[in-house]
């Protein structure tokens, strides 16, 4: 069997029919990861492997479970009981999780085998996976380039054949953008569809867990088993789940797809624009109706996003104080020292920058001018999408504004890095689901992708549209 051509769907079928030994499958990925780690410039996508735990899980699996024997990687900000939940941060080094997160539980119940943890920007803060305690992750298509971020490890693990399914988290594009950059399929579900319990919080009102996979079909399949109400997360929504794969093979005829003109300005790279044009042409050919629409508040999204996410992060990360768990500075003569030194030694520069920014926007005298204003912008952005969805079924946009940067290119100027999220953050502010799907390669051979957006909780329609393109174009076989 050619493991390199496997998908989640195929693997599950083969395991079920007895043609594929899940131990063999698990070992295939572990071997790939270990072999890559020995290369002179490793991808560094997977930072922790749990071979023994995984083998036990395969042994103990129930053959009837829907994801029985499927090896899965999780981002380093997921809680898996007994594993080191590190968030690629020094401050959580050696922190062992005392509990399973909601998604972890669901994965285990569904028979999936969590065998390792993927690299990320520290506390998911970054768009390049260069801000990690474990060093940068590299782009599988060309190791001199970034894999995107913050779920760069998850994205790189998929297109390098180190995993069939890797779960990431998306606060401002952290699943979709790296998936786009690495030639994988990335899904950020509607806020509230997937439990955040056990996901280390960055921006609580924005964070959402989603899968990175090789195909859209796989994305639908995995979503089915991680979505759903969790009473431990009061922001998760208690509603019946549709069959996310149900519509995949429907026709797109008559579907109205909007192209927001604010996403196609001169800021958009010409090569990317050309690739998107081809995607639009494909959808037209499929019978979809393409409409020019406007999302006027788009240009305020990144600004509002960086106020809200840093404000929330400044409070969310305050608990890492060296008192109860995690890293405590050895230079702690007083309580003040304990706080200052533990946090100073424990956090990297991008995390510090965002904590300071968030503290500033919440401080007395600035709260109204920043935080309250940003929340108003957020409302306007939400309303803009709602209005647009009165006229169209889906919205199609580029995933990123520019060609993939080289390693180190974005680290000097954080604002440059923040602007990589220009097309993705608005969805987190609005809480809408978004999917990025590979759609070609640039002149340097690096992957290109588009983003599709659907109304709240219409992941079935979103995945449907993505699948039609994916099935016909097969860009996942690029590597």
């Amino acid at each position, binding site marked *: 069997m050619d493991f390199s051509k496997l998908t989640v769907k195929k693997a599950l079928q083969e395991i079920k029919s007895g043609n594929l030994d899940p131990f063999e499958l698990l070992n295939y990925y572990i071997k790939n990861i270990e072999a890559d780690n020995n290369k002179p410039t490793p991808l560094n996508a997977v930072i922790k492997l749990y071979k023994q735990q995984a083998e036990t899980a395969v042994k103990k699996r129930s053959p009837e479970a829907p994801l029985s024997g499927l090896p899965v990687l999780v981002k380093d*900000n997921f*809680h898996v009981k007994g594993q080191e*939940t590190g*968030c690629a941060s020094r401050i*959580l080094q050696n*922190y062992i*999780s*005392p*509990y399973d*997160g909601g998604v972890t539980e669901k994965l285990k119940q569904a028979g999936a085998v969590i065998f390792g943890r993927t690299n990320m920007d520290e506390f998911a803060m970054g768009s390049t996976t260069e801000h990690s305690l474990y060093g940068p992750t590299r782009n599988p298509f060309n190791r001199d380039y970034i894999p995107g971020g913050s779920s760069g490890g998850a994205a790189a693990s998929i297109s390098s054949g180190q995993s069939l399914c890797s779960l990431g988290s998306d606060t401002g594009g952290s699943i979709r953008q790296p998936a786009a950059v690495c030639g994988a399929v990335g899904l950020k579900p509607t806020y509230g569809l997937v439990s*955040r*319990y*056990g*996901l*280390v*919080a960055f*921006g*609580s*009102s924005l964070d959402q867990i989603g899968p990175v996979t090789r195909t859209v079909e796989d994305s639908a399949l995995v979503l089915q088993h991680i979505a759903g109400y969790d*009473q*431990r*997360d*009061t*922001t998760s929504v208690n509603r019946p789940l549709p069959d996310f794969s149900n519509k995949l093979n429907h026709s797109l005829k008559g579907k109205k797809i909007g192209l927001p003109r604010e996403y196609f300005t001169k800021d958009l790279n010409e090569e990317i624009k050309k690739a998107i044009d081809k995607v639009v042409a494909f959808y037209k050919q499929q019978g979809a109706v393409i409409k020019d629409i406007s999302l006027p508040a788009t240009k305020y999204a990144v600004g509002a996003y960086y106020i809200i996410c840093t*404000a*929330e992060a*400044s*409070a969310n990360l*305050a*608990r*890492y*104080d060296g*008192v*109860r*768990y995690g890293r405590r500075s050895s230079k702690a003569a007083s*309580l003040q020292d304990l*706080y200052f030194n533990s946090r100073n030694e424990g956090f990297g520069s991008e995390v510090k920058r965002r904590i300071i920014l968030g*503290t500033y926007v*919440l*401080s*007395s005298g600035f*709260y109204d001018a920043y*935080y309250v204003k940003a929340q108003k912008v957020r409302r306007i952005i939400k309303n803009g999408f709602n209005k647009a969805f009165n006229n169209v079924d889906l919205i199609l946009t580029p995933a990123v504004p520019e060609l993939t940067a080289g390693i180190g290119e974005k680290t000097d100027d954080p604002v440059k890095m923040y602007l990589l999220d220009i097309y993705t953050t608005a969805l987190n502010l609005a809480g809408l689901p978004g999917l990025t799907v590979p759609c070609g390669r640039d002149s340097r051979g690096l992957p290109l992708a588009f983003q599709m957006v659907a109304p709240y909780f219409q992941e079935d329609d979103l995945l449907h549209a993505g699948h039609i393109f994916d099935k016909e174009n097969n860009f996942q076989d690029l590597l």
Partner: protein
Amino acid sequence: MKWDMVIGIETHAQLNTRTKLFCGCRTSFGDDPNVNTCPVCLGHPGVLPVFNIEARNKAVAAGLALNCRINSMSQFDRKNYFYPDSPKAYQITQLFHPICSDGHLTITVKKDNTVYNKTIRINRIHIEEDAGKLKHAGADESHVDLNRAGTPLIEIVSEADISSADEAVAYMQKLRSLFLYAGVSNCDMEKGNFRGDVNLSLKPAGSKQWGNRTEIKNMNSFKSIHASIISEFKRQKKILENGEKIVTETLLFDIEKQKTRPMRSKEEAHDYRYFPEPDLVPCHISNAEIKNIAASLPELPDAKFKRFTEEYGLNSYDAGILVADKHLAAYYEKAVAACREQPKKICNWILVEVNSYLNENNLTITDFSLPAEHIGLLFQEIGKGTINGKMAKEIFPEMIQSGHKPAAIIKAKGLQQVTDDSLINSIIDTLLAENPDVVKQFKAGNTKVVGFFIGRVMKATNGKANPKLVNQLLNHKLK
């Protein structure tokens, strides 16, 4: 110069829920350190709070007891500060949208020999979580106990309608009584689950212009509230009369020295950077739910007071004392139920005989072993003429000690009153014959001397004669 006090009080009451505000840990007091904790109340990464509905209902009950408006939507906010007793480094509280607003309560204050009522307005009640406790062991060692972290509190903020130390104490006592009636808090002041912060400023008598205020924090006895106000009044008066200004600051009351002292300097003034808690959805409550909670409330002190004065004819002073303590009022009603004819006398008995027994033995009414019905039965015996009041006092200790009903004790001791006319008449005859001088005095119009003969008859019968009957027979003989 004469000064008026302007006082507002912020009271913290711990709600007596079974579990903590945002997790399932027990709220019990006095356990070993850190046993009642879990990842949520320890502030581990990735956890989320879930609002305890029992706490919501108790807060609403408190609001109803204080005649508040119950807000159909309330919301939680984060209050950010670093301290080892605060695991998340923020407290979840309600700043912008409290659960209850605009209430009032009426206090009764005794001043010199007069009693007056006053209405104190309640600005708001909000729900928040308590912090843990620090135990300092020497100069360079402190221990953190997080058993209390996350227990539910309500904070009741009064308007600045209070004008004296007596009123402040009456306010706190009334609040406490209301909460005990409503069953929302155990209000155990020694355990710190009912404590007050006093905000005090002075203004020239009659002036409308308020002065700068100071806040005296965290007092958990009526005594210290009273004493701190007296002491702080004197301190502020002296400063103002020296032509100086009051510095707005937070104070602690030193009970030993009977003086307030600064808690923290202004340089350390906190910026709490409040913002809406993104991990909790807004708290909604319907009118039907509010009605249910209202219906489940027992009769509250004001209504009970009215009923005691009207139904039992008690004077307002006595009714006030009974009603102030829910258990005492209940005891009284049980006693009256066993002897409907003597509500006033039973009240006196409880306030004098029972209370002095309790005081002598350092007991409270809830520890009192004597069933209330037995007091009613005792008054039945008096009513029937079996015993008189003096004899009742004699057998009371035995009733308490043995737990036997009064009738049984009377019978066993042969304590029945002497109601035999001929026996009493023969005693009277002997007495009249022995004391011709006194008889003369009576005939001369000094009717008071009857008392002399009554006393002698009682003595001769060992106090068992029915005094009413003796009086009757004596008057008959002397005429």
